[in-house]
């Protein structure tokens, strides 16, 4: 049974026991008095700052099914999302005296992660150490930190440097995403310290370093007793104001940089903007899932779903009043994020969120609201989690992902669907990622950015 490589079993009701990777090993058995909850609603999920290290396999059913494991992975996604968005101390560790959503002026854990811009430097220079300052694009030098709105600036791990959103064309050059104010959505990619350390220690931040390394990348965890787990995050943002009410979003202040390297004709500029979170990808490598676990979250108001009722008067990326707008089509070229206005993109979700994921979202929203009434995190929902159903397959390095396709409407807007090799599948796509010398890069395209 393939599910045996999962880490531990924890019955929804009844006796709990644990499995470790690859073989059945009862580490401990905690007898829990069996209680029959009948049709009572499930207990509210616990909110914790601990980032889970593997999924908790729940039973019944036994053996687990595809659907029951999907649920378990979705719980893992929510647990990770909550922990990553937990209020952080100055060093990026979770502030265990607070709860998620308690003070929206506090930085959260993932904001201490390292932006890709600060890792892959011009000339292949060595990046600054974890926790040290990194240079800003020159155009951003004109922003005086003293003029930043007090109490609202989210600092990265570098202490004095605001987030820089320098990507407007994520992902895959399929086209920018234009919000309902006619502005370009912005994107950033970040790595946690385990991933950053692996890149730096192996000099994978430069082409020369990758040539010298001359091997496939293998981010931690690489051993069963590894304490480190690589995590990477992609985020998408819209500028606040106009049709976007900051009270409905997790917001941050960011230096929005128009990068001339992205598109011809783009003039470099840097502006301080308040931006709101609309999309959140998490890639998390675990010992049981070397193809990584891929979780994706969105703002609840992003888009309606194809062939489902348009239930809201306003969406972040859909205009119900526009009857002749082409759906899921990128804007015509030329693309320039510096334009004052571009026709908004009309976006619909192609693959509906499952009923089970919707139910789980409702349970977490209830828990978030119980922790902090009116918590802004109630406005975010899990789309799904992609995971390998046969991680140790000798014939399929993707591990046969489930679900077969997964897309975030803000990050894979134009490649949603069910067509293999064309529609968005996190694992299938990232399985093709290489370093600059063609060696496997362990499911991240970041190493292609080395100079």
């Amino acid at each position, binding site marked *: *049974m*393939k*599910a045996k490589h999962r880490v531990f079993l924890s019955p929804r009701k009844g006796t709990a026991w644990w499995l470790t990777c690859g073989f059945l090993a009862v580490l401990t058995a905690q007898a829990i008095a069996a209680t029959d909850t009948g049709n009572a609603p499930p207990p509210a999920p616990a909110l914790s700052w601990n980032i889970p290290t593997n999924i908790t396999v729940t039973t019944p059913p036994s*053996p687990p*099914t*595809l659907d029951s*494991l999907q649920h378990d992975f979705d719980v893992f996604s929510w647990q990770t999302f909550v922990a990553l968005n937990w209020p952080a101390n100055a060093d990026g560790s979770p502030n265990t005296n607070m709860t998620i959503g308690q003070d929206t002026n506090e930085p959260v854990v993932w904001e201490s992660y390292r932006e890709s811009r600060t890792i892959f430097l011009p000339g292949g220079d060595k990046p600054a150490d974890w926790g040290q300052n990194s240079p800003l694009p020159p155009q951003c030098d004109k922003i005086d930190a003293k003029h930043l709105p007090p109490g609202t600036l989210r600092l990265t791990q570098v202490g004095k440097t605001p987030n820089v959103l320098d990507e407007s064309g994520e992902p895959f050059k399929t086209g920018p995403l234009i919000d309902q104010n006619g502005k370009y959505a912005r994107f950033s990619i970040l790595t946690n310290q385990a991933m950053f350390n692996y890149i730096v220690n192996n000099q994978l931040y430069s082409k020369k370093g990758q040539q010298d390394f001359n091997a496939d990348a293998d981010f931690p965890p690489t051993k069963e007793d590894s304490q480190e787990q690589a995590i990477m995050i992609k985020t998408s943002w819209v500028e606040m104001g106009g049709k976007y009410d900051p009270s409905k979003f997790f917001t941050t202040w960011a230096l929005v940089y128009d990068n001339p390297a992205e598109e011809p004709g783009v003039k470099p500029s840097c502006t301080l903007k308040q931006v709101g979170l609309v999309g959140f990808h998490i890639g998390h490598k675990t010992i049981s899932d070397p193809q990584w676990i891929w979780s994706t979250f969105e703002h609840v108001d992003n888009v309606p779903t194809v062939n489902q009722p348009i239930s809201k008067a306003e969406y972040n990326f859909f205009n119900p009043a526009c009857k002749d707008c082409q759906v899921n089509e990128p804007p015509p070229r030329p693309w320039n994020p510096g334009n004052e206005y571009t026709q908004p993109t009309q976006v619909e979700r192609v693959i509906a969120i499952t009923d089970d994921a919707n139910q789980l979202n409702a349970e977490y929203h209830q828990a978030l609201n119980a922790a902090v009434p009116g918590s802004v995190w109630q406005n975010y929902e899990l789309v799904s989690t992609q995971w390998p*159903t*046969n991680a140790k397959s*000798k*014939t*399929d*390095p*993707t591990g*046969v*992902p*489930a*679900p*077969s396709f997964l897309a975030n409407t803000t990050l894979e807007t134009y490649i949603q669907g069910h*067509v*293999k*090799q064309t529609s968005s599948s996190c694992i*299938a796509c990232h*399985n*093709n990622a*290489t370093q600059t010398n*063609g060696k*496997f890069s362990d499911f991240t395209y970041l190493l292609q950015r080395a100079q």
Partner: protein
Amino acid sequence: MSSDMQNFIGLSAVLTGFNQEILAPELDPVDIKSEYLPLFESKIAQESGDPQLVQQILLKYASLAAGGGTEQEIGTAMLDPSNGANWVLACRKLIYTWYAGAWPTLIPPGPSKPASTVGDVISAESYTAGLVWQVMQSHPMGDSNYRYGYWATKPASLSDYTGNP
């Protein structure tokens, strides 16, 4: 899994030489079997004119499997001409379906043409799930899960693909 599906997978494994775990993994997000069984039932009923034929085939497989015969013995018995021409043809079409991901139509010989078989691909999923690619230790044209540079390395063993020693 229904008993019909269990018998269908068992029969398919015997006829194709692949392990049941490869044809129908316990965790099966592709689930091609659920596409093939109803197609097999409807096509054979339509083409043979016998709506009970598939059920009879599956029941005979179940009986032979319960009797403890080897896969080779069961396969030989299922394809025995004494079962009748439509029976044997149905089993052969099932083999074709699994290997090609397509449903075969036999074209009788014409005045100047020999007999031939035309396969209609059932779906995009069936095309990539065809066992022929596995036996080739390769991948469908236009769809590969192998990583960059795989062509320079030795493929996994055939037994890894079939699931049988």
